[in-house]
């Protein structure tokens, strides 16, 4: 599979001179499977430019896998051009709530007064899949598991050709606490990330910022390093960058993370717009 980052900012789109290197668009990652299917992880503002690119050779079916429905993971959906092409089928996978279906929840955004076009007026055929669990799309086996954030949220584990990509963009695995002494089976998201070749993971806060954000649903560097090491991931890509963090500040966080990764800090990187990650039998290659 080949993943490309179209947005890795958290919470709010943040264009500007201070965010040029890592990008200001919110969460969206395209995954091309070996079998030809296209997955889109989250529908943040990065989805707008992905949609423009996809129009060059529009697939008949697109699978959008939503982790949750906070606006920074949903706002790009209304600007995703393939949705406005009759004849295209867009599968929307994502968590329902205990009282509302996925379609009902998404319609809260895709309807006036928040958006001019109603979900029911979209030309493409939209198929909703509530509460994904274990699913197969093309050559990929995909697992969605609930993770600790704010409200119903899942992380995705995508396995294909002996390689595993894990995506947990919003996650607070141990609110207010540490992971060191927690048994693995009691750590939120461990089953998604365990043994993954590449993990995209929430790294919103520096450790000094976390105490005033406990319970907001995001990780600090201490959390993400502890989580990734316990899960024995191959490469960790810090994701969901705080909208207040400049490029320079992100690089300081990266340096901190690399110091903490025992002995092999090169296995930690910062996700950036345009980054590609190829995973196949030949190994893992990251570029961009």
């Amino acid at each position, binding site marked *: 599979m080949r993943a490309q980052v179209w947005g890795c900012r958290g919470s709010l789109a943040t264009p500007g001179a201070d965010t040029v290197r890592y990008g200001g668009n919110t969460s969206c990652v395209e995954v091309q499977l070996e079998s030809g299917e296209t997955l889109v992880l989250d529908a943040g503002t990065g989805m707008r430019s992905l949609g423009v690119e996809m129009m060059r050779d529009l697939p008949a079916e697109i699978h959008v896998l939503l982790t949750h429905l906070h606006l920074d993971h949903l706002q790009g959906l209304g600007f995703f051009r393939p949705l406005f092409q009759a004849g295209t089928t867009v599968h929307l996978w994502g968590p329902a709530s*205990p009282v509302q279906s996925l379609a009902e929840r998404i319609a809260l955004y895709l309807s006036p007064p928040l958006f001019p076009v109603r979900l029911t007026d979209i030309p493409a055929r939209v198929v909703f899949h509530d509460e994904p669990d274990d699913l197969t799309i093309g050559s990929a086996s995909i697992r969605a*598991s*609930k*993770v*600790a954030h704010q409200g119903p949220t899942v992380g995705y584990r995508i396995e294909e050709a002996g390689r595993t990509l894990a995506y947990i963009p919003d996650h607070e695995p*141990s*609110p*207010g*606490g540490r992971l060191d002494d927690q*048994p*693995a*089976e*009691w*750590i*939120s998201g*461990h*089953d998604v990330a365990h043994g993954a070749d590449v993990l995209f993971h929430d790294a919103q806060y520096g450790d000094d910022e976390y105490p005033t954000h406990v319970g907001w649903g995001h990780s600090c560097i201490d959390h993400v390093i502890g989580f990734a090491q316990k899960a024995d991931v191959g490469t960790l890509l810090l994701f969901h960058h705080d909208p207040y963090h400049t490029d320079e500040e992100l690089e300081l966080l990266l340096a901190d993370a690399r110091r903490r990764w025992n002995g092999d800090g090169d296995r930690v990187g910062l996700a950036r717009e345009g980054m590609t990650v190829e995973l196949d039998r030949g190994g893992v290659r990251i570029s961009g």
Partner: protein
Amino acid sequence: MSGATSGDTAAKSLPLILARELAANLATPMFLLDSAGMLVFYNDAAALLIGKPFGELDTLSGVEFGGLLQLCDPDGEPVRGRDTPSGIAYFERRPGHKTLVATGFDGVRRTVNATAYPLFATADELHGVVTVFWPAEAP
């Protein structure tokens, strides 16, 4: 109440993980049963009343746990596991509340008030049971 064990290393469901996180941060004694009715955690505050840390306990079900504590009512009549608050929450899928007398591992008999409720992620998907208890004489 049988099936999974507290030594089971399968990933726990998120509602159970969050309940354990809550319990670990409370000074109110609390214990958790999983969806198979197994005792999977109690917090330090509970350990003080039970007389033994959770980590020193063998794998056991909620019913077995109640048996070890020799639960009875204030008149001294034994209370069956399924008639305890956690048993009511697990077997009848509804909240339960009772005053019970429990004998801790330290041999001390304590009168406690106990309240339990089932953890449902959806209307019919039981993830476990949360039980809080506290000394009956406490305000």
